[in-house]
């Protein structure tokens, strides 16, 4: 898997019917991502970034073409198979954090592991480790409402990484954060990428995120306009 493609799309198309017209959200997209990449889809709103992440995350299916994720063709997956793929191999980070308000920080992170049939002890160890990674172990018992936006997103990161997935899909993860928190989150993600070799794929138009990317794919009107390797600039480094 090290050198083979983790994600591979072939003539991927997504078309949404809009009354009499059709909206082409993705237009013959051919991309490959390898394990351990720290890549991002950039482009203006409506360029197809989120749609691409949704298909790769098996939350949605392609209209034409296909996406192969971890060797599985998304178009052929049943609901159950898609759920199983997400459960084991994919973590999501959302713009609005999507933490469950009635659960504590610990429970929000633990929920990812519930479906994996781990023992209580295993779950506890992994959750606490994930909270250590995002430096929130001391807030394990807090509720999301008691945390700042940055802390909430760090919980969301912990929730995504706790099961040590092969792939983390982050849709505008810094859009609701101030600069300081954005950098902290990105630093955490880079550390996790380096430490766990987790593949990160972002959908973003935030310059702060773009500075951290090692590969930048520009989408425009659903097409790949540019696919380039970039030099990441971490916090404190001059661009």
């Amino acid at each position, binding site marked *: 898997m090290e050198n083979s493609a983790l994600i591979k799309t072939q003539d991927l198309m997504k078309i949404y019917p809009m009354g009499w017209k059709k909206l082409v959200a993705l237009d013959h997209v051919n991309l490959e991502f390898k394990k351990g990449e720290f890549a991002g889809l950039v482009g203006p709103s409506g360029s197809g970034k989120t749609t691409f992440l949704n298909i790769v995350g098996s939350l949605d299916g392609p209209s034409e073409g296909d996406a192969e994720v971890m060797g599985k063709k998304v178009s052929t997956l049943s609901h*159950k198979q898609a*759920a199983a793929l997400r459960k084991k191999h994919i973590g999501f980070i959302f713009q609005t954090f999507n933490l469950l308000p009635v659960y504590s920080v610990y*429970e929000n992170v633990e929920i990812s592991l519930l479906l994996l049939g781990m023992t209580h002890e295993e779950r506890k160890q992994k959750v606490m480790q994930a909270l250590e990674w995002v430096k929130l172990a001391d807030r394990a018992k807090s509720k999301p409402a008691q945390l700042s936006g940055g802390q909430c997103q760090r919980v969301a990161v912990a929730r995504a990484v706790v099961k040590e997935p092969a792939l983390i899909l982050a849709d505008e993860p810094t859009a609701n954060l101030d600069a300081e928190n954005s950098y902290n989150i990105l630093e955490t993600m880079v550390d996790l990428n380096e430490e766990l070799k987790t593949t990160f794929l972002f959908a973003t138009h935030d310059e702060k995120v773009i500075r951290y990317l090692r590969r930048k794919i520009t989408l425009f009107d659903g097409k790949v306009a540019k696919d380039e390797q970039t030099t990441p600039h971490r916090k404190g480094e001059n661009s």
Partner: protein
Amino acid sequence: MTLFKLAFKNLLGAGIRTWLNVVVLSFSFVVIIWMQGLLEGMNIQSSTAVIEAEYAGGQYWHENYDPYDPLTLQDAHGFLPDKLKSMIEKKEATSILIIQGTAYPQGRMMTLLIKGISPDQKIISLPSHFLNKETDDIPAVIGTRMSENTGLRIGDSVTLRWRDANGTFDARDATIVQVMRTMVQSIDQGQIWVPLEKLRELSNMEGEATLLIVDKDTKNPPQVSGWEFKSLDFLLKDIKQLVKTKTSGSSIFYIILLLLAMLAIFDTQVLSIFRRRKEIGTLMAMGFTRAKVIWLFTIEGAMHAVLAALVAALYGIPFLAWFAKTGFALPESADSFGFALGEKIFPAYSAGLVIGTTVLVLVITTIVSFLPTRKIAKLKPTDALRGKSS
């Protein structure tokens, strides 16, 4: 942390909405158990009362006797066979002779049943020992209802007229020696109790009886030709039927109550699914299948019933226990219900009633909780994450 724990947390997280539903549902629990307990108490109380005062361990009826057809009374008497006589001698039974007659209380005329009973019998609780009282004419015992209707009081005299075994009219005065207070109308209303031997003598029916009441401890009563044994199951059939009718009537009340509670839960579930679409989408993104999310929401709804049972236990157990002790005072008019009720009903709550009600409410709540969740099956994860309905 299981699905149950998640559901429980979600439920408590909904705050006041949950507690409102739980309180309404707990109210349904308590009212259903209370009302059913009242009816069960009514059943037990009236059955016990008629067993004590009228049926004991069952009755042998003369083959022509039909309590619902007064015209049969003329022929509904006969000599007691040896088997039955020996039961009376062993004080295992007592015989009753019933003839139709007319009374003339306060110058009025009223038809009634003249019932002869042995003053020394101990088989039923009817206070027949008063009939041992020495009077110039016939000593008679009546019930309070009969006393109320006729205006007869202890010491009053009333003329009785009847036809003897040969069809000849005869008449004699009777003196009321006791007015008995009884819950059981069927030994009171429209009847007068006199000593058995006296009635036999006056009606020219020596050694005859209409029915025979056997002791409560009688096991396997013998078959006797010309006499049919009526078991308690048969004799209490009318009471059971009456309770059943009243149960059906009262069930309408708690069906309405349950409907209101279920409507609240259904509404909560619909609202919950609508408001928590993002949460549903997040769970799906984390790998929950739709079926698991449906389960989670269904368990969450069904847990209303579990919480309601706990809340109902908190205030319901003291309330129901207090009620079972103090009873429910009946109005005067309750005497016309057709039940042997007395002045108060004491509810009876069986384990079956409590468990049955809990299971019923739990099952209905689960079904009602499940129905709105079917919407989740149609929800696309991407739409749910955007907070949209598919």
